[in-house]
């Protein structure tokens, strides 16, 4: 029997679940696959509707983690097996080697000496990184990670001289005894290569909404300047294509919840940066639930933000200008629209991280990859692993999941 709680996934839902349970007084293990905590919100420039930076709340969360001895975080870690039953699970966690000292030392100079430039997944391929890296300056833990697959034997010799590099670091597996498990594995942007009518990711100036977040972020690949990936020029005419993958039986059957608000927010990034830029949002329904209606009203009061009800049928590259042609049918007038834009943003949907994957845990999933909780088993789900949600509701759902986990471990 164990009164400890395991949280799988160190994004905002997982962090919240872990902290809320730990601050009641429970021992919590937080397991994150990537080298850093924070998940998707780490990649966002600002939150809707307040337009405040996510790092502000993350800073508080990280402070809470640092102060709380009840939480133990494991990064680069994955659950490999779970045995036992609700109230008494034995969990094996595999931890990949980081190859760096567990300290906050600045390894930027050493990193610069390495040759390889690796496609930066954190930046959605908009830039490259060195094999020794941190995602962002507020990453937690604030420790470099060495991507050893991209380091030459020569470079290893150089690296081995640093007291902060440990090339002998090895993969290890630890065992945790927990009473309850919270799955907070989050989401991923829907794979644009499947959207063949929308360029399938091959048009330089047709990006997805998460790439837009990185372009707008002050620590992103352009230091916060929204420019066209093809030529680095400021775009003057920008289109947003809503429901890129969502609400579509061939892709995601559900609505991804956040994309309407995200596009309105991103329209405001553009309009704040470029007073002459024109934005068009192609949509099916503008879903701005609750008090978000006020935000929508504010953004749409801008004459240079136009909305067109109509699903986009086609997106094509204009070879001469590197612009992007958008074809849609205006559902109200019935007219077919074909218009050239400098930059097109696909409001790609939210797919559960577990779609097409599996956890070594006996839980039910729906056909899309969303996980169902099981009270009997003491397994609960927080955030977008359960359903598409915004950040506030993810935090809310993380808190609720913590409550359920506590009920499980207390009751036994």
């Amino acid at each position, binding site marked *: 029997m164990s009164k400890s709680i395991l949280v799988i996934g160190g994004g905002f839902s997982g962090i919240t679940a872990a902290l809320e349970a730990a*601050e009641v007084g429970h021992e919590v293990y937080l397991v994150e696959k990537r080298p850093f905590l924070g998940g998707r919100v780490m990649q966002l420039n600002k939150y809707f509707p307040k337009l405040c930076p996510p790092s502000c709340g*993350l800073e508080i969360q990280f*402070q809470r983690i640092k102060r709380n001895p009840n939480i133990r975080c494991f990064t680069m870690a994955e659950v490999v097996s779970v045995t036992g039953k609700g109230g008494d699970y034995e969990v094996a966690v595999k931890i990949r080697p980081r190859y760096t000292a567990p300290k906050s030392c600045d390894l930027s100079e050493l990193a610069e000496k390495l040759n390889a430039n690796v496609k930066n997944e954190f930046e959605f391929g908009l830039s490259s990184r060195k094999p020794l890296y941190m995602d962002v300056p507020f990453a937690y833990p604030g420790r470099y990670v060495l991507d050893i697959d991209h380091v030459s034997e020569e470079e290893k010799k150089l690296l081995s001289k640093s007291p902060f590099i440990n090339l002998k670091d090895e993969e290890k597996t630890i065992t945790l005894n927990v009473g309850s498990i919270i799955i907070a594995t989050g989401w991923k942007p829907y794979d644009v290569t499947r959207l063949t009518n929308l360029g399938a990711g091959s048009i330089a100036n047709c990006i997805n909404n998460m790439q837009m977040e990185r372009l707008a972020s002050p620590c992103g690949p352009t230091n916060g300047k929204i420019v066209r990936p093809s030529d680095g020029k400021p775009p003057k005419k920008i289109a947003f294509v809503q429901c890129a993958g969502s609400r579509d039986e061939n892709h995601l059957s559900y609505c991804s919840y956040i994309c309407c608000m995200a596009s309105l927010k991103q329209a405001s990034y553009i309009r704040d940066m470029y007073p002459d830029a024109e934005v068009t949002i192609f949509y099916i329904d503008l879903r701005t639930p609750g008090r978000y209606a006020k935000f929508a009203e504010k953004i749409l009061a801008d004459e240079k933000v136009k909305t067109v009800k109509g699903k986009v049928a086609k997106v094509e590259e204009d070879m001469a200008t590197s612009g992007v042609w958008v074809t849609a049918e205006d559902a109200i007038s019935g007219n077919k629209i074909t218009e050239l834009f400098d930059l097109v943003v696909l409001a790609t949907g939210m797919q559960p991280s577990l779609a097409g994957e599996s956890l070594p845990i006996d839980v039910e999933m729906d056909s899309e990859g969303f996980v169902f909780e099981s009270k009997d088993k003491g397994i609960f789900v927080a955030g977008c692993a359960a359903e598409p949600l915004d950040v506030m509701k993810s935090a809310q759902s993380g*808190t609720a999941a913590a409550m359920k986990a506590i009920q499980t471990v207390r009751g036994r």
Partner: protein
Amino acid sequence: MAEKIGIYIDKATLGPYMDLDQLVEKIKNRWGDATPIIKVFDLVASEEAKKDIKKDLDSGAIDGVSIVGPSPREDTEYFDFGPKVLVDRVNLREQGVMAFKNPDGSPLKPGEEPPQLFWDMVMDYINMSVIKLQKSVPAEGEPLETEKTILVLGGGWTGIHAAQAVADAGYNAILVEKEQELGGYAAKMYKSFPINPPYTSAEDPKIEEKIQALKNNKKIKIYTGTQLEKLIGQPGQYTALLKTKKGEEEVKVGSVVVATGWKPIEPKYLEPLGYGTLKNVVTNVEFEDMAKKGEIKRPSDGNVAKNVLFVLSATNLYEDIAKQEEEERKKKLEEAEAADSEKSEEVDIEETFEPIETYRHLDYTSEVTSLTALKQAGYVREFVPDSVAYIIYEHMVTPGVYELYYKSAQNDPGIMLTKGKVTSLYAGNNDNVIVRIEDNLLGEIVEIEADLVVVPTGFVPTTALEPVINLEYRQGPAFPDLDLFDGYADSNYICFPYETRRTGIYAAGPVRQPMTLARSVSDAYGAALKAIQCIESVNRGVAVHPRSGDLSFPKFNFVRCTQCKRCTEECPFGALDDDEKGTPKPNVARCRRCGTCMGACPERVISFDNYSVGQVGSMITSIKVPDNMDKEGPRIVILACENDAYPALDMAAKRGHRWSPYVRIIPVRCLGSVNTIWIADAMSKGNDGCLLLGCKYGEDYQCHFVKGSELCNRRMINIGETLDRLGVELERVRQEQVAIDDYDRIPEIIDSFVEDIIKLGPNPFKGY
């Protein structure tokens, strides 16, 4: 009070840039016996150093630890020696060597003797650390006996789930419902739109079963026909005065979940949709009642309705109301501003409760009204053979998984879903309602003659209408500043949905935001957890979020208190009450430890064990100010919010930015804790300027303590007189609003302030 301080220097940080033997000598010369141990470690963030420091502590050689090296935000696990040991961190990596630049802009060069300016900076920061430790004692906390019972206000769907959640976690719940029966609106429903996967059909919310479970649970005490008259005391130790069916009763509770739900919007806001003037226009609440009774009939003649039309919204019909409300809002704002400027020194504490009415509640309920229309269209099809239900919408707001319910409704050929703009509703023959629709998907103006029209209801949160929590707090009975959220008892923070301005009182369900039943269940669980967490934290004597775990709390030296009431007024959390004379009465369990009271107090009678006016004042006055500004540069004190501005400075350095070597940065808990005496201290010691870096305030404020940066700004306006008296120019003090992601901007802000100060010339106090 640390009397013997050990100083531990990180060679990895400073080694390349200065002679550390010389640094150790300098510290010895300055502090002598006060710093009996000064050691240099290759790496201070290491197990070896930790062991060594521990040994020094255990031997009694030292009673305080100053770590000279990386930012206090980093490597924290190496420097935790338990709650009884004072530790301070001198940030000479990020905000020292990495940020330092010479007046000509050049950085420090490794292996070279650093300029005197750098030595001065290093010594200033180390001196401040020693003083800080000397003027601190380990915080001990004030654990309170707590009542492990949670009061759940409201016995509707959310309250029922909250009470159950509380009991399932092993705590007691007292469930208070105003009506004679539990269940609220959920009990009045015929069915609910989907609550569980696969989210395709309406379902029975089974509320009777849930109510029965509560009644059978020994941990839950239910009061129906009961109202909360008064909530007295503080978290952990509240007394709730209940007005029950039998009379008044007092119960002891530790914390509160507010699940008082919503009321339908005033009928006047539905008039543009024909409600009240056309006989056969009903609200969705009235329609639900009909369905519950098993018949869908027209009010005009009692005949069965066969063609039922649901209107979801009609923005264009609300333009006049919107304009009118906007004008009223502006007028009110102007009046408030005028009143503000007339306001004298007199302190006005109690917020008066004003109900909030707005047509916007209708808009905000779009998700629930969309889902309700889909559900009720299904009723029409279920109850009346050969019937047709029309749903006219501008936006079908069925986000997330509710798309699946929308889709399943589309599969019913008797449900006609059409986007369109409803431009008018008028009476036809036989009291039918003719609905005119423009901009619809058919591309023409359409008129539909319906037997019955159903219009939406806005969720007006109960907190918009009355104080609800009826606190006996000096700042008033209700949650403050609810107008920011149009009356919903919501959090201002995306990251922290349960943040509340009244510690220990957590809102859940539609009183917080318009939400579905499924979301309300989850919300009930979340709020119940926060309520439990608060009780447990108070019991351990620690603060709750955002300074969770903090043992320190404000202590009052009442001997010197002049009863000016500023602390009582300014506390963002209403932690202070007062007696007839105006002497503040602190309530530690309501407090969040931001120090706003400390900043407000003109007599400096409020302090924390490890954070006080005297402490920071002494740190400031210890800064060595050169007599000749032209030769050795100005000195400028920066007071930086430790939650946002300070981390932003670390990040700025990590991103390669450097800033003026003339500034000394002191982190503060919140700008709200900045006492104006610190500015006077800085100026009277000859510092040439003072820059305050805090969070954004006003609407969409980002201050984690709600009002800190705003209050600080207000105090800075008042500091003008003090500066004037001192003969110091107002321009020497500036507050800037920054966010944590302003790391590329803050160095420029600092440098331009320094430039302005240099142009202004030396502080006239210099040298005195």
